[in-house]
């Protein structure tokens, strides 16, 4: 029987393989940045993705600059102002079969005890949803969030998250997916949230290695996470390798050596670990899924990994794009 497991590799935000390609308009508010400029950059990135046959990409969280900033109302109408350009960039993504996702920063904290902060988080998620809707993107374009802080009481934080998530408008909640953490909120915790909200789980393999209190083997964790996704949507996971080299940091003109920390992302992926994971998934005939590679080398790391899979695991290569 034909093995249909397919894995699409993607990378987040910055393009390093082509000098000068910007991910978004990063000008400060005084210089009037605009979503339309970010979309022009995104159009150029898509042409690069087409040349590299990359079909999975995480857009910059700040694509629409200051969109929800409470003190800068002049920026609040960017989605309406760019409706044509958003639709065009969505068409381009569909034409190239590129899956697009978003991953807002840690300021989105639905578990926070402060109701005002939860309200701000909901506004951010609604804005991200509107952006994806404006592009006409389907349900595979998800918004990845973390649970947030534990605030000394993990069960209470989980409960707050689930309650806040269930209060989100349907169209927003449908886009939200939840990632396991590297210090708290392991797989068991995010599964708890999934059971109460229906929000699918994004397995982050490095986080799982750093925080796996239930000693769930990686392949089992993968199976569990994939099963939380609806049949109609290709699940996604995050894969990265821990930094293993010392870093020299310069502060106030002084050089300091910093030992590597296990939760820090390395520049490139450990090819054999990734091959082992993907090979195990293919052998187990798991459903197809997408892999967001969270390496500091971004697209360059992706292209390097592809080469390495071809070289060291040629039988796996036909399952990986």
């Amino acid at each position: 029987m034909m093995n249909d497991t397919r894995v699409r590799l993607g990378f987040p935000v910055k393009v390093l393989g082509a000098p000068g390609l910007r991910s978004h308009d990063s000008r400060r508010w005084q210089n009037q940045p605009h979503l339309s400029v970010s979309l022009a950059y995104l159009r150029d990135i898509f042409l690069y993705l087409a040349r590299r046959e990359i079909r999975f990409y995480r857009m910059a969280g700040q694509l629409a600059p200051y969109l929800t900033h409470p003190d800068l109302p002049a920026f609040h109408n960017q989605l309406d102002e760019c409706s044509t350009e958003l639709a065009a960039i969505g068409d381009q993504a569909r034409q190239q079969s590129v899956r697009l996702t978003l991953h807002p920063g840690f300021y989105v904290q639905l578990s926070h005890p402060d109701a005002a902060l939860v309200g701000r988080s909901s506004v951010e998620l609604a804005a991200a949803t509107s952006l994806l809707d404006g592009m006409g993107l389907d349900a595979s374009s998800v918004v990845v969030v973390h649970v947030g802080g534990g605030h000394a009481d993990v069960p209470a934080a989980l409960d707050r998250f689930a309650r806040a998530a269930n209060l989100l408008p349907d169209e927003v909640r449908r886009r939200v997916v939840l990632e396991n953490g590297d210090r708290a909120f392991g797989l068991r915790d995010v599964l708890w949230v999934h059971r109460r909200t229906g929000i699918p789980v994004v397995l982050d393999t490095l986080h799982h290695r750093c925080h796996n209190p239930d000693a769930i083997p990686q392949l089992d964790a993968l199976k569990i996470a994939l099963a939380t996704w609806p049949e109609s949507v290709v699940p996604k996971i995050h894969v990265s390798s821990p930094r293993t080299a010392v870093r020299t940091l310069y502060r106030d003109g002084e050089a300091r050596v910093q030992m590597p920390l296990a939760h820090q992302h390395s520049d490139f992926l450990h090819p054999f670990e990734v091959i082992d994971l993907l090979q195990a998934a293919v052998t187990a005939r798991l459903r197809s899924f997408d892999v967001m590679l969270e390496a500091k080398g971004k697209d360059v790391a992706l292209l390097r990994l592809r080469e390495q899979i071809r070289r060291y695991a040629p039988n796996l290569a036909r399952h990986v794009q």
Partner: protein
Amino acid sequence: MAEEYTDPYSLKRTVLVAVVNNRADLRRAASEGWYRIPQRRAPRRVGADYLAFYQTGAFESETEARTVSFYAAIRRYQLLSRAELLPDEADHARAEEYYFRIEIGPLMRLARPVPATTFRRLTFIHTTLERLLNAKDVKELKLEAEPFQALWSALRASRLRPLPNRLAGDWPVDIALRVRNGHLGIRLDESSDMREAYGPGDNWRVLRIPESRIEVDLAGCLGEIGAALVDLGGSLDAKPGREIVF
């Protein structure tokens, strides 16, 4: 002028150099603050912090002819049909075509205009503010390690008329060449074990040339393109005596 931009971050700002071949377009850029690029013929990179203008020989009577003398900060991009962009020309043959309307700030004059001493025919150039402020010739504006540009220039030097960013059916191609029996599309990508689920459009043949190969074997790439052109009945644009040798 360069002294105003001592902040290294500012110098890394990107610049799209566009070719202006008529006074009306430059006047519009100066007075109304916008410039247009047809979406169909847009360069691979339209996104930039600044727009600069290379004025062609059409500005013969002015000192700015064949130089980049003006640039402006980009404020906004819009996609508009030509009819929306130029309502006075609503009955134009390309009235339905879409254009990037690039809204810009006030034109600024470069303290040291960048002349084109050797180049006469230019397309869009994507560069940095640092290069724009320091270049002594337009050819210095081009960013290094740009395989597309290398292949493009080589095709032009071979008297072909490459077209950028076309769609071969649903396949995006980087460069298209017109041939007797359709089009030859060129994709600058690395080979992949995963095949497309669909083929290119009718009357298209698509050649895949890895960028890494252009960097080391441009002549071989041109030879392969030449062979494909012959297979497809020959180019519609090549002029006698300047064919690609393969």
